[in-house]
């Protein structure tokens, strides 16, 4: 028995080394930089300078919330529709959903830019039917759209999983007791897919709030989100420390919000 457990812990060694190298070590670096200045001595200056970035932070929160909201608005019906398909239908939906994911995020965003740009595909079509041109790239809307679009599958998949786990008999029972289609959804399907909704929201909100590429490309450099701020700090060594502090605070805030979300979903399970 002892030997077996020794062997099995031996198997886990590569994984632990991996975690130590690529998760724990970078984290320690972030913490180290956060509380030191450029000379490497301990300081709390970085913490006090955070208030300079308050507005950027609030803007990021606002835009991520809107993006998450729209991803949910489109994602939930899509997931519901998908869960109600036959086996083949589900597979087709899944491929359609996953296909864009096989393309790199940066390339996807770049092509979205090509489509939405002033001289892009969409505007050519709009101009051709006499509705354009519409200035899209460089607006808040474009960035929000980009976030919702890029992280859409992360919204759909957990919700889809939750809905497909609901026993069909529960929906029949609801109909039997007097629910029409809409009420089956609000009284039974929605509450029973809550855990999926919460995962979906978390999985779209978290990458949205920390993204920098989407806002740079689709935002056209007209405004800055917190992700861009962090990225900018790491382009010159002299601002590593404040960059690390913003990252650390962001990380803690995200952890707190995830914890709150999880608590919320567990409380009724």
């Amino acid at each position, binding site marked *: 028995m002892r030997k077996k457990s020794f062997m099995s812990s031996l198997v886990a060694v590569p994984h632990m080394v991996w975690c130590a190298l690529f998760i724990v070590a970078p984290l320690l670096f972030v913490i180290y930089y956060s509380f030191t200045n450029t000379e490497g001595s301990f300081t709390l200056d970085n913490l006090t300078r955070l208030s300079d970035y308050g507005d950027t932070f609030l803007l990021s929160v606002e835009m991520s919330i809107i993006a998450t909201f729209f991803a949910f608005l489109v994602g939930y019906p899509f997931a519901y529709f998908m869960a109600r398909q036959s086996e083949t239908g589900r597979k087709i939906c899944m491929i359609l959903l996953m296909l864009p994911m096989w393309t790199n995020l940066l390339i996807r965003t770049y092509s979205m830019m090509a489509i939405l740009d002033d001289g892009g595909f969409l505007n050519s079509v709009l101009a051709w039917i006499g509705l354009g041109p519409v200035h899209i790239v460089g607006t808040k809307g474009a960035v929000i759209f980009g976030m919702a679009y890029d992280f859409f599958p992360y919204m759909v998949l957990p919700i889809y999983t939750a809905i497909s786990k609901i*026993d069909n008999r529960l929906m029949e029972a609801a*109909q*039997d*007791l*007097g629910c*029409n289609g809409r009420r089956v959804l609000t*009284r039974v399907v929605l509450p*029973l897919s*809550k855990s999926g909704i919460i995962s979906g929201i978390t999985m779209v909100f978290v990458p949205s709030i920390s993204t920098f590429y989407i806002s740079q490309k689709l935002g056209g450099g007209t405004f800055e989100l917190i992700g861009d701020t962090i990225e900018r700090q790491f382009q010159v060594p002299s601002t590593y420390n404040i960059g690390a502090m913003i990252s650390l605070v962001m990380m803690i805030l995200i952890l707190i919000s995830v914890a709150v979300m999880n608590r919320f979903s567990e409380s*009724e399970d």
Partner: protein
Amino acid sequence: MEKIIELKNITKEYDGEKVLDNINLDIYDKEFVTILGPSGCGKTTTLRIIGGFEMPDEGDCIFDGKRINDVPAYRRHVNTVFQKYALFPHLNVFENIAFALRLQKVPEREIVTRVQEMLELVALKGFEHKKVTYLSGGQQQRVAIARALINQPRVLLLDEPLGALDLKLRKDMQKELKNIQTRTGITFIYVTHDQEEALTMSDTVVVMSEGRIQQIGTPTDIYNEPVNAFVADFIGESNILDGVMIKDRLARFAGKDFVCVDGGFDPNEPVDVVVRPEDVDFVDVEKGMLTGTVTSVNFKGVHYEFIVDINGFKWMIQSTDFVEEGREIGLYIEPDAIHIMKKSEYSGLYGDYSSYSDELDELSNADDVEE
């Protein structure tokens, strides 16, 4: 009594396979009707058509004189107790039962009184705030019944509701269900594959096989006067023999002539003869109408169950008298214990105990989960 539900020429196919073949069934108000049959006979589909979860391909479903084929489930005055209960896991006992009333925006006060009444009816007082997932099978069953009854439906549909319960609990629930039905005066349509359940509770039993109704009648009728070999075999134990009706009240089977009480057949018409195991008496060999050898004995508690070889045909005989294995024995059958049936497509398929074993019997009863 007035008709509450009429099924007229109902036909239903799945992928080209006929699951219901021309079903005609009248159900009367305040009746306890059981649809009985083996797995895949179409009984659940029949129930789902009445509940509004399936559309018949052909035929009409009439409720209270009106055709309701196109009425969706949520607007029918019918409620269902589902197989495995289908309770809402996100709601507690109280909210599960109150579900239908909440939809109708019934005032809170009335909801509380009516849920309390229901909890009392199903003997679950004090359970209101329990999570349904923490309840035992029997308790979940009661919640499901209360949830379906609170709407005061005209008809309650029950789809194998006791299938997942153990034997003792099932017996208790049978009594309780019958009790609830009598007290509330609601028409119950009960689907089961358990013949004993059907005989115990029902006013009317509908026996189905292969998408067709074989027989409709009271439990006594179905047991004493089965119309064909399928019904005779499915309800209780039967020895079914190939015979000839020589003339009215005289039948020939097992190589002998027997006086019986049936008539109305053509002279020398080939028939199926049913003799129930409990209707055969053991007598001395010389006094016997038939003689046979006991090939196996099983103790069943109230009686013994014997397999007796009579001229190569194995009979099942139940008796409180003990006879040891291998003994030669005489058999006596009263005229009114002999039941004569017309030949049917099921002739020759059932009623011979040459390959009988208890184990097989249990296996064939294990298919609770069906359709």
